[in-house]
C-alpha cells in the first residue's frame, strides 16, 4: 500500500488532535482519581503509541521521567507478543521497574485500541500510586523489600475482568481503596483515549494511524537532527557528584556527550557501580532524564514522540548505578536519576550557553510520605512532592518553586489537612535562598508541619518517610553564578538525618526547607535597580544585597545608593 502524505495543515490538525486526545484522558484522571498524589500533585503520565509501540503523543503535563521511560518500556512490552495476541477488551497491568518507570509505585495500565476490528494503537498510562506495600524507605537492600511486584498480567481478558489480580493487589497495600480506585481511574483514562481515537479515525476517514505516525515521527526526527547539526562536533564531558545518607559514599556520574553530525551519543562509562540501597536507576529511567536534557535544549516546543528520541544514543554500563540489575533496590531512583539532566546541561553549557540553566533545587524531586493512625484508630496516609528553586539561565532568573527536571504539583494545604490530622504551619518562600548571580537562582521554600497534641492528636507514632537530597552539595551556579542554599530537615528545631523513616509524636514540629537554585553569571553584574526591588519585596536581604551583590540599598527609601554601590563593586571586580 502506498503511504499517503498528509498536507501540512491536515497533518498539523490531526497531530494536535492526537495530543488533545491524550490531554483529555489526562484530564479525566484528575476527576476520577482518589489519591491526592494523582488528583492534586499530577504524578502520572498518559500516552499512546502506534501498533508497533512507537510513541505518538503524550499528555502536555507529562512527568518527563515516566514519559521518557514509558516511551522505551511500552515499546518493549508491546513487541513481546505478536500482534495477533492482542484482543479487543484486553487490559494489561504491570509495575516491573525494569520494564517501565524504575520503581514499584509506578504502575502501568496498557490497553490495545481496535478500530474496524483491527489493532490501531495502544494507550497506556503510568500512575504513581500512593502505596505499593513493602517497607517505605530508601534504605532497603533489594526490590523484594520494597513492595509488591506485578509482572505483566491481564486485568481484563477480552473484556472479561480477572478479579484475582485486583484481589492480590488489594491485600498487599496499606491503602487498598485508594489504590484500587486509582487503578480504575487508569482504566477510565485508557477508555477515554481509545474512544476519542476511534472517533477521530471515523471523522477523518482513516482506517489506521500508520501513515500519520510515519509522518509525525519522520518530521520530528528531521527537526531534531537539524538542530543538533548546528552544534560543532566534539566530545563534551561532565561529572556529577551526588551525596548520600550518612555513612554511604557519594555517587559519581561520569558523562561524555558526543556530538557527531546529527547524532548525540551519551556515554556514562565510569559512573559508580550499583548500590545496596534504593538509589539505583534502571536504564529506562536514566534514559528519560538524559532525553529530558537533550529535548529541552534542542526542540523544547515540538510535541514529544518517537522521532525526538531517534538521534539519541545512550550507553550505560550494566551493573552501574545508572543501569542496575534485578533485584537491586530502586525505590529512591529519582535521588540519582534526576541529576542526569543537569549533568548533561553542564557538559554542553560551553557550546550552548543560552540553552541551559544552572543547577536546580528541585533536583532531585523530594517526596514526603506521611502516615499513621488518627486518634480514633483510623489509618491515614498522604504524600507531598515538592521541588525547589530552579537554576537561572543566561537571561532569566530561576523560577520557583518547581520540581525539576521531573514535574508535579504541590498538594494544597487544605487538602493535606483534610486527609491527615496534621497542621501545616508554614508554606513560604525562603529569603536569600536563590544562588546569587547576574541572573538569580530561584528561591527555595520552607514548610512546617506540626503533630497536634490536643484532642486532635493522632495515635503515635506519625511516620514520615523522606526522599530528598542537596543537604550537603547545593545546586551549583554557572559562569560565576553562586550556588543556591542547601536543603534542611529539622525536628523541633534540631537538624536530623532525613534519609529513611522519622517517627514523630504529638507536639513535634518538622521543618522542611527546599533548596534554592544556582545563579548564572557574576552577581556583581546584576542590575542594581532589580536588586533594590528584590530587597523591597523581601526576596533578598539588605545584607546579602551588599555582601553578595555589592549593591547598597537604602533601608528607608529602598532605593540604590549608586555612589556606595560603585565603590563596593569596584573592590569586587
Amino acid at each position, binding site marked *: 500500500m502506498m503511504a499517503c502524505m498528509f498536507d501540512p495543515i491536515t497533518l498539523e*490538525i490531526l497531530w494536535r*488532535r492526537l495530543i488533545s486526545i491524550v490531554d483529555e484522558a489526562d484530564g479525566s484522571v484528575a476527576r476520577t482519581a482518589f489519591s491526592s498524589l494523582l488528583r492534586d500533585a499530577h504524578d502520572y503520565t498518559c500516552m499512546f503509541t502506534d501498533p508497533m509501540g512507537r510513541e505518538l503523543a503524550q499528555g502536555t503535563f507529562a*512527568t518527563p521521567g515516566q514519559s521518557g521511560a514509558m516511551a522505551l518500556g511500552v515499546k518493549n512490552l508491546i513487541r513481546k507478543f505478536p500482534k495477533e495476541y492482542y484482543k479487543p477488551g484486553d487490559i494489561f497491568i504491570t509495575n516491573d521497574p525494569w520494564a517501565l518507570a524504575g520503581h514499584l509505585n509506578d504502575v502501568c495500565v496498557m490497553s490495545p485500541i481496535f478500530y474496524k476490528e483491527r489493532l490501531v494503537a495502544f494507550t497506556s498510562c503510568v500512575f504513581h500510586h500512593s502505596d505499593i506495600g513493602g517497607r517505605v524507605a530508601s534504605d532497603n537492600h533489594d526490590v523484594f523489600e520494597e513492595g509488591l511486584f506485578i509482572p505483566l498480567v491481564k486485568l481484563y481478558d477480552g473484556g472479561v475482568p480477572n478479579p484475582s489480580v485486583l484481589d492480590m493487589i488489594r491485600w498487599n497495600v496499606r491503602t487498598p481503596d485508594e489504590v484500587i480506585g486509582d487503578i480504575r481511574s487508569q482504566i*477510565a483514562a485508557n477508555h477515554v483515549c481509545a*474512544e476519542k481515537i476511534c472517533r477521530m479515525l471515523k471523522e477523518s476517514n482513516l482506517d489506521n494511524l500508520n501513515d500519520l505516525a510515519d509522518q509525525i515521527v519522520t518530521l520530528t526526527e528531521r527537526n531534531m537532527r537539524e538542530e543538533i547539526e548546528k552544534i560543532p562536533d566534539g566530545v563534551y564531558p561532565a561529572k556529577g557528584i551526588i551525596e548520600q545518607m550518612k555513612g554511604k559514599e557519594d555517587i559519581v556520574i561520569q558523562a561524555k556527550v558526543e556530538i557527531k553530525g546529527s547524532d548525540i551519543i551519551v556515554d556514562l562509562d565510569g559512573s559508580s557501580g550499583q548500590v545496596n540501597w534504593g538509589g539505583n536507576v534502571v536504564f529506562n529511567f536514566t534514559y528519560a532524564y538524559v532525553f529530558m536534557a537533550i529535548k529541552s535544549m534542542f526542540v523544547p516546543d515540538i510535541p514529544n514522540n518517537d522521532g525526538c528520541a531517534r538521534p539519541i544514543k545512550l550507553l550505560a554500563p550494566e551493573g552501574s548505578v545508572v543501569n542496575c540489575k534485578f533485584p537491586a533496590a530502586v525505590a529512591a531512583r529519582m535521588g540519582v536519576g534526576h541529576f542526569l539532566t543537569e549533568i548533561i546541561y553542564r557538559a554542553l553549557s560551553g557550546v550552548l550557553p543560552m540553552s541551559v540553566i544552572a543547577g536546580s533545587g528541585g533536583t532531585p524531586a523530594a517526596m514526603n510520605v506521611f502516615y499513621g493512625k488518627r486518634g480514633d484508630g483510623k489509618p491515614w496516609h498522604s504524600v507531598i512532592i515538592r521541588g525547589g528553586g530552579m537554576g537561572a539561565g543566561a537571561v*532569566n532568573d530561576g*523560577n520557583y518553586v518547581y*520540581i525539576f527536571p521531573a*514535574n508535579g504539583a504541590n498538594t494544597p494545604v487544605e487538602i493535606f489537612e483534610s486527609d491527615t490530622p496534621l497542621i501545616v504551619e508554614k508554606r513560604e518562600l525562603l529569603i536569600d535562598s536563590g544562588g546569587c548571580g547576574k541572573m538569580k537562582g530561584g528561591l527555595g521554600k520552607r514548610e*512546617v508541619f506540626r503533630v497536634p497534641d490536643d484532642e486532635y492528636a493522632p495515635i503515635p507514632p506519625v511516620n514520615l518517610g523522606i526522599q530528598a537530597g542537596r543537604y550537603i552539595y547545593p545546586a551549583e551556579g554557572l559562569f560565576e553564578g553562586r550556588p543556591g542554599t542547601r536543603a534542611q530537615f529539622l525536628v523541633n528545631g534540631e537538624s536530623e538525618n532525613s534519609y529513611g523513616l522519622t517517627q514523630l509524636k504529638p507536639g513535634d514540629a518538622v521543618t522542611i526547607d527546599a533548596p534554592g537554585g544556582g545563579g548564572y553569571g557574576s552577581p556583581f553584574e546584576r542590575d542594581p535597580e532589580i536588586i533594590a526591588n528584590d530587597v523591597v519585596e523581601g526576596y533578598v536581604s539588605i545584607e546579602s544585597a551588599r555582601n553578595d551583590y555589592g549593591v547598597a540599598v537604602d533601608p528607608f527609601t529602598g532605593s540604590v545608593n549608586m555612589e556606595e554601590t560603585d565603590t563596593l563593586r569596584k573592590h569586587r571586580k
Partner: protein
Amino acid sequence: MSNKFYRLGCDIGGTFTDFVLLNDRTGEIRTGKCLTTPRDPSDAVEEGIRVLERSTPGFVAEMDELIHGTTLVINSIIERKGARTGLITTKGFRDVLEIGREIRYAPYDIFAEFPRPLVPRRFRIEVDERVRSDGSVLKTLDPEEARRAVQMLLAMGAESIAVCLINSFENPVHELMLEEIIKKEAPAVSVSISYRVLPQIREYERTSTTVTNAYVKPLTEHYLSRLAGRLESIGFKGKLFIMLSSGGVTSVETAAEFPVRIIESGPTAAVIAGQYYGRHFSIPDMFCFDMGGTTAKSCLIQKGVAGVVPTFEVGRVQRFMKGSGLTIQVPVVDLMEIGAGGGSIAKISKMGTLQVGPESSGAVPGPICYGRGGVDPCVTDADLLLGYLDENYFLGGEMRLDKEGAGRGVEEKVVNPLGVSFIQAIWGIHDLINETMAAAAKTHIAEKGGNPKIVTIAAFGGAGPVHAYGLAKKLGAPRLLVPPNAGVGSAMGFFTAPRAFDVLRSHKVSLADASFAEIEDIFRGLEEDAAKILRKEAGDDVIRFERSMDMRFVGQGSEVNVPEASREFAAAVKDNVRRLFDDTYEKLYGRTYPDSEVEFVNFRVRASLPERLLQLPRLDGKGGQTLADAVKGERLAYSPTARQFIPYTVYDRYRLFPTAQFSGPAIIEEKESTLIVGEDAHVTTDEFGFLWIDLQGAR
C-alpha cells in the same frame, strides 16, 4: 409582559463602545458605536444613548431593560491597571499566591514564564489565626492584630483588600471579623473575602480568585454606580443587567460585589449571539471570531452550543499556553482570548524581528491614524495603509483617519529599523496578527475536538470582518458568515442571553446515610433563593428549575454532575439515584463500580425564564435593486495573492439586497466595520442581510 418595548444592548470594549437598540414590537434594530472613554466609561454610554435618541426620540423612557457587558474588567487585569490591592492571609501563607500549584505547564521548556501575582509580596500581610480543616478554631484571631494588619495596608495606600484565610470555607469567622473591621476602619476601601467570593477548598485557587476580585472591585463598583446614576438622570426607568462570564445576566448589585464573575462579560455576548445564529441557520460547527481594538475572542460553537467551564485563566504570559495565566475559579463560557486587536502595537523584538501585540494602544491614545496622540503604529494603521479601510468612511465618516501620519509612523518605527520595504512592513503587520490568531484558533478548535477546515467563521467586532478572510485562509476554513452590523453584532447577544441564575449548596453526605427529605428541603431552599432573584423580572413568565447533584465515589477528588429530573426528591428511591450516578459515570469513563460507595457533595439549581425570542429582521427593501446600485466605486488595496495593490470593488452594505451576489476582490463597507474579501471569494446576501462568503481556494 412589561409595556415598555425597547431593549438596549451595550458592550464596552477596550476601544469602542457598541450599541444595539431593539424595538420588540417591530423587530427593528438600530446600532451605534462610539469611542470608549476609559477615564469614565459611562461617558461613552451616555454619549451613545444621546446619539441613538436623535434617530429614535424618546426611547429612553420606553426602555424595558439595558443589558450591558464590558471588557473593562479583563483589560484592567491584563494591562495591570487595577486597584492597589492588599491581601490579608493566615500566618505562614503569605506566599500562597506566588507559589501557586508548582506545576511546570511546559515540562520540556526550561525557560517557561509565569505570571506575576496581582499583589506584590510587600502588600501581603499575615495575621496569627488558624481554623482547622473541620472548621474548628485552633488559634483565635485577636481583633487588635486584625486591626493592625488593616491599618498597615491602609498606610501603604491599599485601595482594595482581599482576605483569604486557610480553611475559611469551612468556618469564615475570622474572615468575617476582618471584613467588619475593614468596613468600619476604612469604609472607602473595597473588601473581598474569600468565603463570599469562592467558598471552595484549595487555598491557591481561592486566593487567586479572591485577589482578582479585589483587584478589579473598586473600578467596577465606581463605574457601575456612576452608570446607574447617569442612566437615571437621563430618564431611564427600566432594569439594568450585567452579562456574566457564564452567559447569563445578573443585577448591578451582584456584579459590583463579584466583578470576578463578569471578567468575560463582553466577549460572552458575541458567543451568545453566535449560539443564536448557529441554531437559527443550523450551522453544526461555527467558529465565533470577535476582534475588537484590544483583543480577539473566539469560541467554537457546536450544534448551537458553546461550552461552559468551571475555571479559566486570565492573561496567559506564554503563547496562550494553559498554565501560564492567573487562575480564576468561576463558571465561564469556554472562550479563548488573545491580545490581538486593531490597536495591537507593531514593534521590533529583541531578536530583531517584527512583533505585533499583545500590547495595545487602547482607545487613548489609540492607533496613529486616530490622531489622538498615538505614536506607535498599530494593526489599524496597517489596515488603513493597505487600503482596507477608507480614511473618509471610518465609523461611517464620523471619524477622519490620518493616513499620512500612519505612514510616517510605520516608516519610522518599522521600515527603517527593519530595513524592509513599506509594503512588506504594512502587509507584515496585517499578516502576522492573522498568524497569531490562527495559531491560537487551531489549538482552541482542536482542544474542543473540532476541525478548522469545516468551521464557518462568524465575524464580529470592528476589526473582525477586516481580518476574518485572512484568518479563514490560514485555517483552511471554507466559509465566512458576517451578520449585519457585524461591528456591533456581538451586542445582539445581550438580547438572547438567558435570564438564568445558578445557585449551589455544599452538603457532603453518603448516599447510604442521606436523608432524602432533608435533600428535598435543600433543593426547595435553593429554588426559593433563585426565584426571589428572578421573580422581579418574571412577570407572568413561569420560572423553570433544573436540579442536579454533584456526586462521586467516596474518596474521589472531584465529582460528576448528575441531573435530577424529579420534582419531589423526598419520594425518590435510593437505588434509582444510584443508577443515575452509575449511568452518568459509565458514559464518561467507560465503567462503573456498583459495589463502591458514593456520596453527594453539592446540590445545584438553575432557575431560568423563557428565552425572549429575537426576530431576525428581514431586509426592508430600502436597499438597491441591482448590484450596480450597491457599488460605491473602486479602491486600490493590497492583494497578497497578486503581491501588489489592485482594484477592489467597494460595496455599500446598506444597499445590498437579498440574493445579491458577487465575487472578490471586494470591500463591503458598513458604518461600524469593513469586510475585506480576496479574489477567490464569492459573496451572497440572504434575506436577513447576512453575508455568506464561500472561499473557493478552500477544499
